[in-house]
């Protein structure tokens, strides 16, 4: 059986655009959530922003990395730029000799975005209709708009940049697809279809229509509009929804022997993956039963051949919505039994909000870093525990960690659940 390891990481996040900044922000329990009125990168909210019930976001603050991208990429939508910056970091971090031609035939790309281009598409609509007041004029659509409109621009731009000859795929299965894309890339290597996979997720959904579509169905946080840093509060009684965020994350995944032979640093090994559909409702979960999420967790654990006691850390979906946090807690208890109360779990979204597909990827990255750094990050804003969310969610303060196995969970609209089991690298190579 071919084994799959993580040998490179890259990130663009509301906590910073390097692995160090990302990790430092998480460990120090710093909230990156702010007021919608303070948004810096999108002027489309100027007229309508104040009308939304939710007034909080998690924005990528400074994105100077964009300046380092080639011109033809810099003209693309924000989510494309995030994707490229994170992916380039991951390839650099893996110290891969990209000039080695023989590599290219065995190198593939798997990317995901739930929303794709939000700003460029809405800006184009506004331009072509004078903010909706006139008939649509296609002549006003920018020349390269097609590259923003399709959702696989990051993947094909990366394929071109690295002259990748393997599979170049983009999937989009709502908010579970940050984990799904890692699983997809992992299976591509495991099945022998590639030796190296650049896997990534990217989102920049902060544009009025995407924001409003979430706002109108009451899934966004409204309880702490005047105290944004307290708005994202997974497992807390006063949670009122998620804080929409943005960013990108990427892994360089590699067949284990290949990584060892070239002397690569191995962060962790992916040993199990689960993917299920609850076929219940487009946005709701049944709060009292969670068989489908439990099944996804069991799939990943069974593939990784681990028992509940082997799981030392969980990075859950923990979106800070009522339904998700309760359902997820129930599923974890169902699978791990009594051990569920012994396992620390920490909610990455408590600090960075919910960046749709990227969010699950951030969780996988946080779990991977926990092995290397010997720490797990806290869940912030867990002040008044929801009695139905009574697991050890590492409140407020980071904790020492010397475990070897982590479970990562992501769930999404359309009823998808995706899970990963990550294992600490057996040895430093």
């Amino acid at each position, binding site marked *: 059986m071919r084994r799959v390891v993580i040998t490179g990481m890259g990130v663009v996040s509301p906590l910073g655009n390097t692995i160090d900044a990302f990790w430092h922000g998480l460990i120090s329990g710093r909230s990156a959530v702010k007021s919608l009125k303070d948004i810096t990168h999108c002027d489309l909210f100027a007229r309508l922003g104040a009308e939304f019930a939710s007034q909080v976001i998690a924005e990528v603050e400074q994105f100077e990395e964009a300046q380092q991208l080639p011109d033809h990429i810099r003209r693309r939508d924000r989510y494309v730029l995030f994707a490229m910056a994170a992916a380039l970091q991951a390839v650099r971090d893996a110290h891969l000799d990209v000039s080695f031609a023989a590599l290219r035939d065995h190198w593939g790309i798997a990317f995901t975005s739930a929303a794709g281009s939000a700003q460029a598409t809405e800006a184009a609509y506004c331009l072509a209709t004078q903010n909706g007041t006139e008939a649509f004029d296609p002549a006003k659509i920018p020349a390269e708009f097609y590259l923003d409109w399709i959702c*696989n621009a990051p*993947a094909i731009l990366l394929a071109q940049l690295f002259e990748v*000859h393997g599979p170049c795929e983009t999937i989009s299965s709502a908010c579970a697809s940050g984990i*799904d894309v890692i699983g997809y890339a992992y299976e591509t290597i495991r099945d022998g279809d590639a030796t190296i996979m650049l896997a990534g997720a990217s989102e920049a959904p902060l544009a009025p229509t995407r924001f409003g579509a979430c706002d109108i*169905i009451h899934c966004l946080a409204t309880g702490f509009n005047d105290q944004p840093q307290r708005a994202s509060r997974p497992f807390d009684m006063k949670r009122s929804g998620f804080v929409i965020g943005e960013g990108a994350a990427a892994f360089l995944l590699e067949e284990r022997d290949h990584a060892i032979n070239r002397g690569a640093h191995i962060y962790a090994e992916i040993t199990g993956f689960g993917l299920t559909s609850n076929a219940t409702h487009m946005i709701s979960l049944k709060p009292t039963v969670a068989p489908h999420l439990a099944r996804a967790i069991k799939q990943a654990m069974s593939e990784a051949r681990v028992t509940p006691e082997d799981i030392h850390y969980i990075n859950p979906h923990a979106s800070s919505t009522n339904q998700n946090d309760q359902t997820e807690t129930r599923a974890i208890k169902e699978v791990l039994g009594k051990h569920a109360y012994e396992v620390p779990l920490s909610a990455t979204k408590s600090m960075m909000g919910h960046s749709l597909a990227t969010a699950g990827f951030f969780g996988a990255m946080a779990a991977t870093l926990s092995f290397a750094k010997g720490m797990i990050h806290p869940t912030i804003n867990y002040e008044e525990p929801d009695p139905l969310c009574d697991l050890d969610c590492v409140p407020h303060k980071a904790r020492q960690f010397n475990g070897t196995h982590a479970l990562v969970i992501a769930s999404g609209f359309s009823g998808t659940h995706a899970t990963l089991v990550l294992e600490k690298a057996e040895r430093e190579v």
Partner: protein
Amino acid sequence: MTKRVVAITGIGTLTPAGRGTEALWTCISSGQTCLGPIDPEKYFDPSRYACQVAGQVPSFSEPRVLTEAMMVQTDRCSQMALVAVLDALEMARLPMDFRSEGSPVAPERVSLTVATIAAGWGFLERQMHNLWTKGVGTMDRYGLTGGFLAGPQGHISILFGVEGRTRTFVSERASGAHALIEGAKVIQRGDAEIVIAGGTEAPLTPLAWAAYQASTMLQPTSHLEEPVHADRPHTETLIGEGSTFLVLEGCEHALRRGVPILAEIHGWSRGTDPYPLEGSRKQPGRVLTQAIHASLAQADIQPTTVDVIFPAGPALAEEDVAEEAAIRSMFDRPLPIVIPKTVLGHLQGAAAATDVAIAALALDRQMIPPTQDALLRSDLSSISECADLPIRHVLVLSGGLGGTHASLLVSKSE
């Protein structure tokens, strides 16, 4: 353990040819184009666009899946897909709901792969219009799930009770093949007993059409001079809407259930011949040749035993030339070549599933629709009736922007 052989046991299709396999076969066999002027009542006023022609799906209704509530909640992409999936399940003699008692397969053993480039755009554009003209309060509570890429995946899985793996592929024009290949892999690995795999696309919205126009891929045509692709090769593409879904299962599973096998998927491969997106769309085609070899090797057959080719045939000069070069380098004899896109338009995310459906029908019926000669593209003399029978292996190619490509080998059931 021997790998499972992947069988196609159901086809559901709703394309410009109409609904169902008979309509599709009749239309493709006639060789008459389904492309026509864009209906301004049904879609949008095309007069401001250079391309005013598209393949449009005739009116359809299906109360079993398209209830009033469902129509309110869904985009046209989901609506077409729900009808196509229903028909595919019916042909494969599977229940309308895998959760129902008596279902021959447990719902968690059923998987779904969906291909699309832009599911939900029609819905999303209405949302943008409402928001900008009438304010935040007028937004639709189904705006999110009706207007996003994973919409069809969710609507299909909920309605039909698909509780296994579900995934949506959005790799532009290669997405259709990617979804089918993933479906075949799921069966081969034993991750599910049944896979519903296919694609859906509804690109006839003002913004989507403007995006295509900006890409310069569309043929500037205000009225239709037929036949479009055939006598004027590489004239830029014409596209259509539609949805086709297949039911895939292991051959033994199909035999146990006693359902007819239309065809089998014996080989596949994916790869990329990357090229700069700015400027030229030139594709070298080297990796495509490797990929075709790989899919034939998987099926353990030689190029000499391929009987028919369905090329990606986007009618884009550089892509066509690269594809022709790859085909020429592999096959040293004239081969019947079928391009359903000349009749239906390029159905984008739904194109590959539609091509594979037609290939499966050809293998099942041992007939091929009107064809062109792969090595003598300008010679329009049809060799359809002259093709050697039996037809055993059909190679279906797909390709997309940036040089992504995929091939599927569809074979006669043994």
